[in-house]
């Protein structure tokens, strides 16, 4: 099998807030009855994290679960593990109505790292990013500039942003430009 490449192949815009394409990440979209034990437990066993509540993401290293909608969850894992994971899902949910699709290549993952990462995000997304409202563990699907995106916080100073592969360059450049423009000085630590 030929080596796969991520959308921006690790593109980097260093600065006080650094924008970094995080490379390949395994992703599976799973749709089904998420109140059911079946999908919840296969999600947990594949990622090792608790099943997320509404509007939350539980991410640990490369693995994690993001709450996408009442009947959709996004599984994160190393890129190479997706094939086995899909097989495991099929085995576990064989008798149930569900849909599981590999979407690793359909997406780009971009990290926004640095002191005023919150403000870089707030320049582009119509979301309340005040530290008292949005923090690590929260997950939001919204728009970034003019494209759909989803994001969560890896820690106080780092956002992980997912967008479609075709607009990865647009999203990256927008984030890089916003980072380069500097801090607003609004979300002051306190």
């Amino acid at each position, binding site marked *: 099998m030929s080596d796969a490449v991520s959308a921006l192949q690790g593109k980097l815009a260093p600065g006080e807030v650094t924008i970094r394409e995080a490379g390949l990440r395994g992703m599976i979209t799973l749709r089904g009855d998420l109140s059911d034990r079946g999908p919840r437990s296969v999600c947990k066993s594949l990622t090792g994290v608790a099943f997320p509540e509404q*509007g939350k993401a539980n991410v640990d290293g490369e693995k994690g679960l993001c*709450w996408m909608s*009442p009947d959709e969850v996004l599984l994160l894992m190393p890129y190479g593990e997706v094939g086995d994971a899909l097989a495991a899902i099929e085995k576990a949910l064989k008798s149930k109505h569900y849909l599981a699709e590999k979407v690793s290549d359909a997406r780009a993952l971009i990290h926004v790292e640095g002191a005023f990462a919150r403000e870089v995000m707030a320049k582009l997304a*119509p979301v309340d990013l005040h530290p008292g409202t949005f923090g690590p563990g929260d997950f939001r*699907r919204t728009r970034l500039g003019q494209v759909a995106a989803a994001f969560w916080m890896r820690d106080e100073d780092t956002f992980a942003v997912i967008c479609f592969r075709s607009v990865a360059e647009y999203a990256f450049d927008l984030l890089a430009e916003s980072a380069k423009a500097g801090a607003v000085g609004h979300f002051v630590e306190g």
Partner: protein
Amino acid sequence: MLILHCPYCGVDADETDLHAGGEAHLKRQGPGSSDAQFEDYLFMRENPKGVHFERWRHVYGCGKWFLAARCTSTLEVFGTYSAQTTEPPQDIKDAISAKRPGWTWGNYS
């Protein structure tokens, strides 16, 4: 610019995250319907000044369609609710009655 509460993901979404889908509670007419019924279904809309029921999709968010009861002149939102219903639920109707006594819309009041 409106804010509507998405009943599916719990987000108070900006209008820019939403897509408007026209009037709610249309009854689909398929083969076998009369010309008048089909015309009603395709083209005839309430277009009220005041209480209105609408379809919205949280398109940049969870992707779900939901329904909203809203005043078209003041933009007051009486409530948002599941799209998987054929008529406005009682709690929504009560919420409207509390604010707009005597309201009517289509066959509802």
